[in-house]
Every structure is written in structure tokens, then in C-alpha cells.
């Protein structure tokens, strides 16, 4: 494929991917409420947004859930990634692999419905858990763990095991090897795994809608209710802020995980 064609494909593709986002950002600074009328640069909608109690509370809830879910997902996903990577055979491995992969592929309505039914059943048996932050966190931790396990597994696959053997040879006990050699070695997967689980939790609408309780609204849920009524400039402002946050997080993930270019070997 010629160079010209390649550049065209990229330009078209990226234009397609970024045009809507770009426009959102642009119009969040539009003094006019109407999308089609540009009335000058203004940050008034950001001000309106800050005053919006509903969005603020929802944002806090989302951040709280995302942090807890991401951390839980990280622990679970790392354990799972190690299991699948280091143990080629154990009882139930196929089922485990299925349970790790399917949540990533299956439609969200299925995840949401099944989890809610689980919580309802639990509630009718033992009266717990109350639906809201705990249930949303558990739900997000579950599919977050699956994502993390994929990343950890991929990183472990490329990990040089002779490093672990060298550490053992030099006198380190297995636990020390894990903490000082293996985990630092897979740190890109660990970091980007946490960030990914965090972002996914922050972004989830469908599953949260199913498993939430009467007093817990996440940010996507608040935004969804708002946009069902139509385009709203406060939402544009919110979207831009969100984009900025994600941009920073992803740039961080990328920066921390991209291997540094090698300097020329000294002599």
C-alpha cells in the first residue's frame, strides 16, 4: 500500500475518530447554548457545571467506586494472570479461562442483568449486600480483573524467566524474587492495568445502572439522564473535563510503560 494511501487512511480514520470529540471540546467554550451558533469564547458552562449539585455528587461517587474497583481488580487480575501464565495445567483451567475472557466479550446488558439477579438473590437469602456503591464496586472489579489478567498475562509471556532463576541462584527466597524481580518486571502491565480498570469503571453506564441502588448515582448515569433530554452545554463542559482527565491518565500510562529508547552502548 503506497505511502499516499497510508497517510490518507490515517487522516480519514483519525478525523472520523476525533471530529466528534473535538467539536464537543470546542462547543463547551461556546457562549451560546446552541450548537450551531458560535457566540464567542466563554467558560460559563464550566461555572454552571460546578454549581450543578447532581453532577458533582455523581462524580464523587464515580471516583470512589473507580478507585476501589481498580485496586481490587488489580489484585485479582494479577493473581489470575500469574495463574494462567505459570500453571499450564490445573483442574478447572478451561473454566477459569472462560470466566476470565467472557466478561470482556459478552454484551454489557448480560453482565448487568446477571449481577443484579445475583445481588437480589443474595439479598433475599441473607439480607446483604445493599445495592449501591458496594455492588457497583464489586461489579466493576469483576470485569476490571479480567482486563488486568489479559495485560498481566501478556507481559508475563514476554518476561525473561532466567532473571528469576538468577535471583534464586544468588540467594533470594521465592517471595523476594516475586517482589523484587518479577513484579517490577511486569510493572507496565500493573500500572496500565490499574489505569485501564479505573477508566472502565469511571465510564460504565449499563452495568452500574442495573446493580445500583436508590441513592447511588454514578457520573455516567447522571450524564445519561441528562442527554436523553437532548444536547446540553453543561454536558459538553463535563465531557471536556473528562477527556482532559483521561488524556492525562493515558499519557501517564503510555509514558510509564513505553520502553525507553536505548542509549548507544558505552565503550
Amino acid at each position, binding site marked *: 500500500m503506497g505511502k499516499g494511501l497510508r497517510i490518507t487512511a490515517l487522516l480519514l480514520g483519525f478525523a472520523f475518530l476525533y471530529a466528534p470529540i473535538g467539536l464537543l471540546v470546542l462547543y463547551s467554550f461556546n457562549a451560546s447554548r446552541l450548537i450551531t451558533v458560535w457566540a464567542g469564547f466563554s467558560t460559563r458552562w464550566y461555572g454552571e457545571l460546578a454549581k450543578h449539585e447532581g453532577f458533582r455528587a455523581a462524580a464523587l461517587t464515580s471516583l470512589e467506586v473507580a478507585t476501589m474497583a481498580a485496586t481490587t481488580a488489580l489484585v485479582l487480575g494479577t493473581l489470575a494472570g500469574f495463574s494462567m501464565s505459570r500453571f499450564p495445567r490445573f483442574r478447572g483451567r478451561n473454566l477459569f479461562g472462560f470466566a476470565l475472557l467472557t466478561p470482556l466479550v459478552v454484551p454489557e446488558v448480560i453482565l448487568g442483568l446477571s449481577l443484579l439477579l445475583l445481588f437480589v438473590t443474595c439479598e433475599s437469602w441473607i439480607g446483604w449486600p445493599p445495592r449501591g456503591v458496594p455492588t457497583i464496586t464489586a461489579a466493576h472489579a469483576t470485569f476490571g480483573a479480567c482486563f488486568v489478567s489479559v495485560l498481566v498475562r501478556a507481559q508475563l509471556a514476554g518476561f*525473561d524467566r*532466567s*532473571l528469576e*532463576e*538468577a*535471583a*534464586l*541462584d*544468588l*540467594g*533470594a*527466597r521465592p517471595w*523476594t524474587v516475586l517482589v523484587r*524481580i518479577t513484579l*517490577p*518486571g511486569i510493572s507496565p502491565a500493573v500500572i496500565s492495568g490499574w489505569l485501564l480498570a479505573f477508566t472502565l469503571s469511571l465510564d460504565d453506564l449499563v452495568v452500574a445502572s442495573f446493580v445500583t441502588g436508590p441513592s447511588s448515582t454514578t457520573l455516567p448515569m447522571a450524564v445519561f439522564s441528562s442527554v436523553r433530554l437532548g444536547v446540553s452545554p453543561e454536558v459538553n463542559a463535563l465531557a471536556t473535563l473528562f477527556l482532559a482527565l483521561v488524556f492525562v491518565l493515558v499519557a501517564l500510562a503510555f509514558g510509564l510503560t513505553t520502553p*525507553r529508547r*536505548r*542509549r548507544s*552502548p*558505552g*565503550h
Partner: protein
Amino acid sequence: MALLDINSASKHFGAIAAVDNVSLAVERGSLFALLGPSGCGKTTLLRMIAGFETPDSGRIRIDGSDVTGLPPYARPVNMMFQSYALFPHMDVARNIAFGLRQERMDRRRVAGRVEEMLELVQMTGYASRRPHELSGGQRQRVALARALAKMPQLLLLDEPLAALDRKLRAETRLELIGIQERVGITFLVVTHDQEEALSMASRVAVMNRGRLVQIGAPKDIYEQPSSRFVADFVGEVNLFQGKPTSPSDRPALTVAGFETPIPLPCGTDLPHGTEVVLAVRPEKLVLSQTPRDGFAIAATVSSLSYLGGGSTVHLLTRQGGQLKAYLPGGIRFARGDAVWVSWSAGDGVVLTE
């Protein structure tokens, strides 16, 4: 007492015996080589000594203590890995210090030892570099320093020269020998390169298909190979297979492809009618324009390879027998020349396998 004593060690992977009843002893303070082609089991044996594999049967003793069941971190053995295995997220100093930190050595002593090691491998000043900033040769020195830092009783080296180019290989070989003499630690080198093994070690063990086939000083391995495999694997060789001629004062073999019977060393006493293999090293062959007295074979030069310091000459007899000769110095022959080949009977070695 030998430092390392392996007693009938065996290891199977499925139906295949990677190591088959191997016994050997390595003297304290020596440089020992384990030589063999890929798949001969030398790496498995090495890993058993280091503790990464457990033998199915047999015992391994270091300095008198049985280490057979011990994990790698509990053995007084350290290994220099073929891929070097330097920890990428630590600088050179921390890599070298790693083993010492595991022993809970106090910081000042650690720092001192690290400096000592850097000096030993001529890498002083590189303490804060990271592995990815070093060249291959430099990484190897760090790997060696790291493995020596704990002053282990036994140092294992897994194909230490394999990744280096020819010139660097020769230099590094000398350096390794020098370092070993300086620190006095017992070295065990595993290699598939017979030049490496013969030039570095004071004793060599040759392995093939999991078995130990010959063990001895380099000179003995080269000049008195015990089997066809050893004769062929270690250096170049001419092999003659045939039956002895009827007994006379000069024992000889009738070999297909050669009109003249091939002389056996004096005093060779063989049962009548058995097939025998005789090995003659190419450098023992003498080529001349006229036949020497006694024994000479007529042949033509079929190919020449000039190697700088000498030449390898391949010859063909009229009956189809093949010969390999090595001549130091310049080439005096050309392809197609008719020459006479001879050697003294005592230069041949009768192989028992």
C-alpha cells in the same frame, strides 16, 4: 576430597534420559569443562548442580555436603547465565550487590565488595550504568562479577563465550582463566565449543546423549580419544574402519577405499577378525611428491582450504578413500595434484567404541 562430587545422577523427561547415570568429580580450585553437542545433557546437568532441576536418582555433593534436595538459594553455588540475566531495573552496582544483600551483609562491606568485583572484571566506573546501556561484552563482565561477588565454592558458567565474536572470544578466554587463578574459585564451564573447552580447562568431560563418554586432561582427550564420537567431535580426524590383516610383525588394517593396508600402532593386539576403528589426526599426515619408505598412500588433492596459519587439504585415493590433512604454513599443492600421503604408525589411535 573433590569439591563437586556427582554420583550416578540421572534425569528423565518423559521417556528420554537427558542425563543418564553420570558420575564425575571436580577438584577444588580447578577449571573444569563439560563439553558436548546440543542435546547431550550438559545443560541439564548444570541445572541440577545449580538446583533448578532435581535428579531422579543419584546424589550431588559439594564440599562433602549433600545438596541434592536443596533449592538454588541454599547452595554455595552461583551461576553465570548464558543470557547474562542482568536485572534490567537495577544498575550495575545493585546487580552485583544483589546476592550480598540476600546474605544481609552490611552496607559498607557490600559497597567494598562491589568495588572489588568491578575492579576484577575491569568495569570500575560503571557502577551506576544500567544494563541496557552496556555492550554485550560489558554485560558479561557484570554477570561474572555478580556471580563471583558471594565468593561461592563453585562457579558455573553456561556457554560463556557463545555470544562473542572470534577475537573477543580469545581475549575473554584468557581473562576468565586469569580471573579464576586470581580468585581461586572452582569454575565449571559448560560448552559445545571444543576449542573453548580444550584451551581453558585443566580437565574436560565429554558428554553425548546424556552419558559421560570420556573424562581427562585436554591433551588426553585430543590425543587418546576413547571412542569414535570423541575422536570426531573434538577436532578433525581421519577414521579408518576395517579388519586387521593376517598377523605379521607390522599390524595393519584392510580398509575399503585404500589399496595399501593402514598401519596400526606397534604392539596393537587384537582378536582375529574383529572390525577396528583407527583414528589419525590430520596434522599427523605428511604429503610429499615422492613416496616415503615403508608406508605411503597415493592420492590426488580434491580440495584446499586456506586458513591463514595453515591449510586443510582433502584428498581422494583412486579407490575412493578419503583423507584429510592439515599443513601449517603456505600451500605447496594445487587441486588435482598427485601426492603421496604417509604418517608414522604410532600416530594412530585405536578406538575402543
